[in-house]
Each structure stands twice: as structure tokens, then as C-alpha cells.
């Protein structure tokens, strides 16, 4: 039996200033699954994401990626396996050209340079490889940010608010790219319709624990559950 792509077991964490963000999170994501991570601001979503690649060290509990424990000796391999696409592409794209930025990860992890072109092709940005990220549109930057992570051949893709600040067309184009990738996906988002479109399963986190885990459509149809955790569908949406 192959190990799950991601296993989080009893994860608890308090920030150095004493603020406790996670109180025993359990989460299992199998290979090939696409899971939305929902929750209000301050629920602990970002804190959880930063545990997945070992930026934070758990106070209690453990995290495994593809069967490999997130621990100091494995950090390099863990960071290759967990591809995080951050919310603001300007934070992620720091090299002067698109191609150099996409090549940054593979160079660090010792992966073959062909991966750069494959990743750019996978997000449809091959023709912009030699441009500066500064001169790309918001949607194009988002896709390049995705390519920088895809080039590292991750076990699990983690997206932080992928649809934030995107115009509707760019939002749809990104969804099409993501649906065509055939990879394990964990998507942190407030955009509930986007979660429904992309992820068959959703996990709702609030106050540092998982409060619901099930089919996205069922979760989003539970108005009381959403309201109890400061979530709601946009105006005009109904699922029941």
C-alpha cells in the first residue's frame, strides 16, 4: 500500500509569543485527491500550511509527506515534495526573468533543467519565458508562480488563495490549468465556488481544529455550519 500524499496527525502549535494556533489537527490526503482547506481568517490555515514544509516545527503531533516525516534531516526532500504557491506572486517570483525563476527550484534540488520547459508548458507560459515577471498580468504571474513549484515535481501542490485578485477570466484559466494537472492538491481558499469547482473534498478548520471534512457540495450546502464559522456563499449562490 502506498503511503498517503499527506498525513497530519495530532498537530498542535503555539507561536513563540504564546498564541496557540493549532490544537491537534488531523488530516489525511491520499494521492491524486484535490482538497480545499476552508476556514475564516485566523483559523490556522496558513500556520498549518507552513508546517507542511517544515518552516514551523510542530509543538506536538507529526506531519508526513509521501511517507517521509517532516523533520530537519529530511527538510530538503520535504521542500521538494511540498510545492507551496504563495498568495502574492510578487513574493514568489523574485528572479529577473520567468525562466530563471522557474529554474530556481530545480537548480536547488538538483533536478534536470528540462523540467523548466515542461512546467512552463503545463501552465501555458512558454512564450513568456524570457520576460520579467513585472511585465506580466496578474493571471500570468499566478500561473508562473505555479510553474516555479511544478518544476520541482512535488508530491503535493499547496495553493494559498489561488483566486485572490484575479479577474474572472484569469480565475477560470487558472482553474483549467489546475484541473489538467492530475496532481494531489491542497487549496487554501475563501472562494467557496472555486473550492466547489476544483475540489471534490473540503476540510473546514476553525480555532485550530478540523471542524468538518467531507464532500465539498455537502459542506457548502450546510448553511448553518458555514455561518457558525464565518463563511458564506457569495450573493446569488444556492446549492440546496
Amino acid at each position, binding site marked *: 500500500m502506498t503511503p498517503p500524499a499527506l498525513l497530519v496527525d495530532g498537530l498542535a502549535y503555539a507561536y513563540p509569543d504564546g498564541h496557540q494556533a493549532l490544537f491537534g489537527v488531523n488530516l489525511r490526503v491520499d494521492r491524486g485527491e484535490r482538497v480545499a482547506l476552508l476556514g475564516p481568517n485566523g483559523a490556522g490555515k496558513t500556520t498549518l500550511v*507552513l508546517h507542511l*514544509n517544515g*518552516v514551523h516545527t510542530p509543538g506536538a503531533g507529526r506531519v508526513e509527506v509521501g511517507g517521509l516525516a517532516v523533520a530537519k534531516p529530511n527538510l*530538503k526532500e520535504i*521542500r*521538494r515534495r*511540498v510545492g*507551496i504557491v*504563495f498568495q*502574492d506572486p*510578487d*513574493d*514568489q*517570483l*523574485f*528572479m*529577473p*526573468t520567468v525562466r*530563471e525563476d522557474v*529554474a*530556481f*527550484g530545480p*537548480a*536547488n*534540488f538538483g533536478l534536470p533543467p528540462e523540467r523548466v520547459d515542461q512546467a512552463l508548458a503545463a501552465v501555458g507560459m512558454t512564450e513568456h519565458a524570457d520576460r*520579467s*515577471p*513585472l511585465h506580466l498580468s496578474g493571471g500570468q504571474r499566478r500561473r508562473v508562480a505555479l510553474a*516555479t*513549484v511544478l518544476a*520541482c515535481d512535488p508530491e503535493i501542490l499547496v495553493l494559498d488563495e489561488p483566486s485572490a485578485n484575479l479577474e474572472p477570466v484569469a480565475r477560470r484559466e487558472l482553474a483549467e490549468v489546475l484541473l489538467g494537472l492530475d496532481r494531489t492538491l491542497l487549496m487554501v481558499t475563501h472562494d467557496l465556488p472555486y473550492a466547489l469547482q476544483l475540489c471534490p473534498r473540503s476540510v473546514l478548520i476553525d480555532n485550530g481544529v478540523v471542524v468538518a471534512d467531507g464532500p465539498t457540495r455537502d459542506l457548502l450546502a450546510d448553511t448553518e455550519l458555514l455561518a457558525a464559522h464565518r463563511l458564506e456563499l457569495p450573493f446569488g449562490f444556492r446549492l440546496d
Partner: protein
Amino acid sequence: MNPLHRPGDSPVHRLPAQVKIVGALAFVLCVVATDRTAYWAFGAYLAVLAAVWVVAAIPPGWMAKRALIETPFVVLALAAPFLGGGPETEVLGVSVSVSGLLAGWNIVAKGTIGVLASLTLAATTTPRDLVVGLQRLRTPSVVVTIATLMLRYLEVIVAEARRMRLARISRGHDPRFLWQVGATARGIGTLFLSSYERGERVHLAMVSRGYAGALPDTGGPARPLSWLSGLVPAATAAVVLVGTL
């Protein structure tokens, strides 16, 4: 501001950046080492630069406009003949100091040629290639990293500052009045903090992709022929320098 880089596809543009950096530095060293009374040598240096411009297809007017950056130094140089001490001489009926005159000439001649040489390097090399060249020349990796990030984020930060300024003047801010500079100052403080926080986020994103302290090496080594042809101007300057001794 006028862009310092002039895109092109001349042999000078195509030279690897590291060759051009070494060439420009060696050339300027020769100029600086020249005795200030060897007047003909400065004409020769200028001729060498002009030859490079011809090959790189850079119009002299383009260069002249950007060389204006030197103006403050020229003003200083013009003052030198009147401020210097020692024996005096008559120029156009005005009595000026001989040593001051020579000092002023020294500043103008070497400064101008130095500025023109730097502008030639900048005109034919993109900022990105300059950083690659520095990396090839084994500049410490922290310097290369800082320069790379500066290239990338300078425009981001300038755009942020512009948005903040727009937001301020949209609410009636008019920094021409002295008592309103406080808001501008606080804006700069906010800009610093947001840039600092962005720095932390950028670092986090870099670490997540396996960053361990050095940027990957880019660009290839220069071929011997590139070095040979790229150093011709500097070598000519060296010959001129030896000729003045």
C-alpha cells in the same frame, strides 16, 4: 529619467558581461593613472571610446545627454582655478591659479572619460547581464543576491510608493506645504515596514523552494576570443598610458 541601456545586437552588445566589466574597469584604471599633463593621451582615450560607440551603433548625442549626470563635478572643476593657490597665470584676461587650473582639467578630463566608459558599459549591457557578469567574476554571493533582488523589487517598491502618494493626495494632501511633510515621512516609514515584511515573505517563498544561501549560477564562461576582442579598448588604453611615461 533616460534609460541607461540601449538595446541592440552589435558585437559589443553580444560580448559576455564579465568581459565588458573587466574591460571597462581596466580602461578606467589606465585613464586615472595617466599624468594630467599628457594632454594628447586623453584625446586618444576619447577616440577609443568613440570607436566602441561606432561598433555598438550608439549616437554620440545619446551619450552626451546621459553624461550630463557629471555636471556637478564640472562645476567643482570650474571653481578650482579660482580657488587654488600658488603661481598664477592669465586666461582670457583673468588671473587664475596654475595648480587650480590643472586640478580642474584633471577632474573634467578623467571624470568625463570615466563617466563615458561607464555609460558605454551600461548602454550595451542589460542590468540583468551585469549581475550575471559579476557572478561569473566570483563576486561574493551575498552581493549578487542583493543586486538580483534589487533589480526585481525596485520597481515593485516604487509602484507601491506611487500608490501611497496617490492615496494621500486623493485625500487633500499637498506636500508643498512644510507642515504636511510629516505625512510623507510617515509614508516612507510605512513603505520601509511593508518592504521589510515583503522581504520576509520572499525569503519564506525562496526557502520553500530549497534556497540555501546562493543563487544558481547563470550564464556561461566567456570564450577566449571574446576576451581577446573585448579587451582591445582597454589594451589600447594601456598602450597609450605606456606612451605617456
